[in-house]
């Protein structure tokens, strides 16, 4: 079930209405069933995989909880962790990477002059498998590390893994944040619910008005076999807007839904296109995934504790794997490596200037803000070209294009597409600048009691939702596209 469908609207209204009439235990059972219904709506067998992952990780965590009376030695706990890692990564690897692996082996053999016909299976990638696998894995690793007690309740743990608002495209929640919410009674808060409604409306607006409309431009440009420089970069610009609007829209709708149910999910985006450096970008883009890789891969590899050369290698490894997490194709690995190299460059530059291990956190002088922002914006979009262009020959061609060489009509078309995409993106920029001006995001407002909310705020909220609804009615794209991150 997708958020921008009539099915979901009905589903959510029914779930929310029934949910708040139940006791805490019944709420959890109800949400669990609703989450599986949501996930298996189109392809019911996906639920088997989700259930299998849940069962294995719950059971493994019971076995290695260091505080449990029956917990074994450190060696046996490590063995259980390996069971969790192997089972999760095998399922993920099979469904996501099997054909990629076979294709790559075949290509390598062909380049060595060996002809081989290896089996290629028609494997359907279960939606959201990368997200819930990582969420579940973080739980078993945290239990192994002793940061978390194993959940005694299979129901509660299953709900933590399957919680429908964030199941298929994140944010990838940590058990230490989400499980206590599952385990403890929740109270309906009208102030939170109203804020959540604004957040959801903003999410739907970004998806239906911005992402789906600029997505048409990006898809059209990337379907061309020989776009000129101007046309290509208009398409990349549109794609950069599409992927941000699309993915952050999903997160906003997910966070809004969760708040209606008494949960608070983490932020996944912090105005990434305002970033001033590569490390700044990764503190703002897909925060739940970058922090996952930081905590469960980069730091265990040694992080920045073993000297600069090892730090740089760790960064590169982390980013190549992070790239491959997005999809089983070399362009994603290349995109990851590219961002890894940007960070390596930043770290090295920082070391040479002696500004410490985190040069991206240094205060930027006012005169440098705009040029540095523009440079970062361009660098991120070069990355989007690597991300979006799956054909290596086309990518090479794209990177060697020279401005001003295409026919006039095509250059005009490039400018035209850029301007249309830019016009559609104005609310995104306005939102980012408003946040900078305010000093905090709308969704970060502190929760106050209903009696303390001024009427003016409620009127503004109602008007904001109304204006977004009015615009969605009129400008929503007639070509509805799936959320991009469903593919990962």
């Amino acid at each position: 079930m997708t958020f921008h469908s009539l099915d979901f609207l009905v589903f959510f209204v029914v779930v929310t209405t029934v949910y708040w009439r139940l006791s805490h235990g019944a709420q959890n059972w109800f949400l669990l069933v609703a989450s599986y219904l949501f996930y298996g709506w189109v392809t019911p067998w996906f639920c088997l995989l989700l259930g299998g992952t849940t069962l294995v990780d719950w059971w493994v965590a019971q076995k290695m909880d260091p505080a449990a009376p029956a917990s074994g030695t450190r060696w046996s706990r490590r063995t259980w962790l390996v069971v969790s890692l192997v089972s999760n990564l095998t399922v993920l690897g099979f469904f996501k990477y099997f054909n990629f692996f076979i294709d790559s082996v075949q290509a390598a053999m062909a380049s060595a002059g060996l002809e081989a016909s290896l089996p290629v299976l028609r494997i359907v990638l279960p939606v959201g498998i990368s997200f819930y696998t990582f969420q579940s894995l973080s739980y078993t690793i945290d239990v192994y590390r002793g940061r978390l007690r194993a959940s005694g309740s299979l129901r509660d743990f299953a709900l933590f893994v399957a919680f429908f608002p964030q199941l298929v495209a994140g944010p990838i929640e940590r058990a230490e944040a989400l499980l206590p919410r599952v385990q403890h009674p929740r109270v309906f808060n009208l102030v939170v619910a109203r804020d959540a409604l604004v957040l959801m409306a903003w999410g739907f607006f970004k998806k239906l008005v911005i992402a789906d409309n600029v997505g048409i431009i990006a898809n059209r440009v990337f379907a061309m076999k020989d776009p000129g420089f101007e046309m290509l970069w208009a398409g990349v610009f549109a794609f950069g807007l599409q992927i941000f609007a699309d993915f952050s829209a999903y997160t906003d709708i997910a966070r809004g839904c969760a708040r209606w149910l008494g949960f608070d999910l983490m932020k996944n985006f912090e105005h990434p296109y305002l970033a001033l450096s590569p490390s700044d970008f990764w503190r703002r883009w897909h925060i739940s995934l970058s922090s996952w890789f930081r905590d469960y891969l980069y730091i265990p590899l040694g992080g920045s504790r073993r000297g600069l050369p090892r730090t740089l290698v760790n960064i590169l490894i982390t980013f190549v794997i992070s790239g491959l997490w997005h999809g089983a194709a070399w362009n994603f690995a290349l995109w990851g490596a590219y961002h890894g190299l940007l960070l390596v460059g930043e770290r090295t530059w920082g070391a040479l200037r002696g500004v410490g291990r985190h040069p991206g956190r240094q205060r930027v002088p006012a005169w440098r803000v705009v040029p540095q922002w523009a440079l970062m914006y361009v660098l991120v979009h070069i990355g989007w070209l690597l991300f979006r262009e799956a054909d290596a020959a086309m990518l090479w061609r794209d990177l060697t294009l020279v401005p001003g060489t295409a026919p006039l009509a095509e250059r005009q078309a490039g400018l035209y597409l850029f301007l249309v995409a830019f016009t559609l993106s104005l609310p995104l920029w306005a939102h980012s600048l408003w946040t900078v001006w305010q000093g905090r995001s709308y969704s970060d407002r502190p929760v106050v009691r209903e009696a303390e909310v001024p009427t003016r705020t409620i009127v503004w909220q109602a008007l904001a939702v109304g204006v977004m609804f009015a615009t969605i009615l009129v400008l929503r794209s007639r070509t509805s596209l799936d959320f991009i991150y469903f593919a990962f």
Partner: protein
Amino acid sequence: MAILAVALAVPLIWHPVMARLSSRAVEPSYLPALEASRERIAFRPDPIKDLQRLRPSYVFIGDSMLGTRIDAGYLAGLLGQDVAMLARAGTGSAYWYLSFKNYLVASGERPKVTFFFFRDLNMTDPLFRLTGPFRWSLDEVAQPEEPALNDVIASRRQGAWFRVHGAVNRAYNVDRANAWMERQLYDWPTRLWTDDEPARRAWLETMTFETMGLERLRPMTDADVQATVDAEADFARTMPQSVLPLIIDLAKQHGMKVCFVRVQRRPVGNTPPAQSPRMQEYMRDFKAYVEAEGMFLHDDTGDPMQTLAMYEDGDHIGRAHRQRYTRQFRATLHPLFR
């Protein structure tokens, strides 16, 4: 509840806003079953004059499936008779019916045969490419009133969801506001190089169909491949609620012959795409119906001469193979070209 009430009330502002901003004449839709009043693009009569000047022996109607298959000039050369194309990419059977009625029939010309090119279920799916951006091209072939087509559309939009959709559209003046907003959004950049509206429209057409047209697309297996919904392959149920009987009735009234040509979808390897039993039955019923009405049906599917090498992106035939297809088409259907 108050916040929801206000949020639902705010879009009502489209009524006064459009009354003030939408300065063009707003006309009642020729498809009231589908949409409310809105600005529309005027009917484009030029093809009628073109047909009267050319006096074609054969006329072809369709979308890019036709445009990438038949080379009209080449076919005219082979036949020694004139051939006219009423082809427009991104159109559906509603557009083809209106082209047939408002261009060909209205021109008074009576070609020997009129060919309609379609994919799978297109001829019995009048809602295909009817709404959203497609309505602008439909405007150009529609008269101020199209009661027969409207009846067909109405028969397809009887569910509760369609009624809710229609009520929301009317309550908030969505169709008019959408037409105006889209025009502003997609038009304003072109004002940077011309103020003349026909020139702007011509520029947008050139960009869509030439600068970014089919010829410029990469060879992609799945580009523009329209997935056929097997459940819809029910000829007896869908035919009466389609433009197919309208086309046939019109042809019979004016003593014209019509041939429907189902193009072959992209082959898989070098074998034609698989046909579900339902689809096969649909085509059998289609053929029986058309022939009983004295018309023709030709199905390219399974033609061993139409190999994968001929295809470019999706179901389109590559430019280099267009004449080959045209030649084969003429040879296969030579009784109709005598």
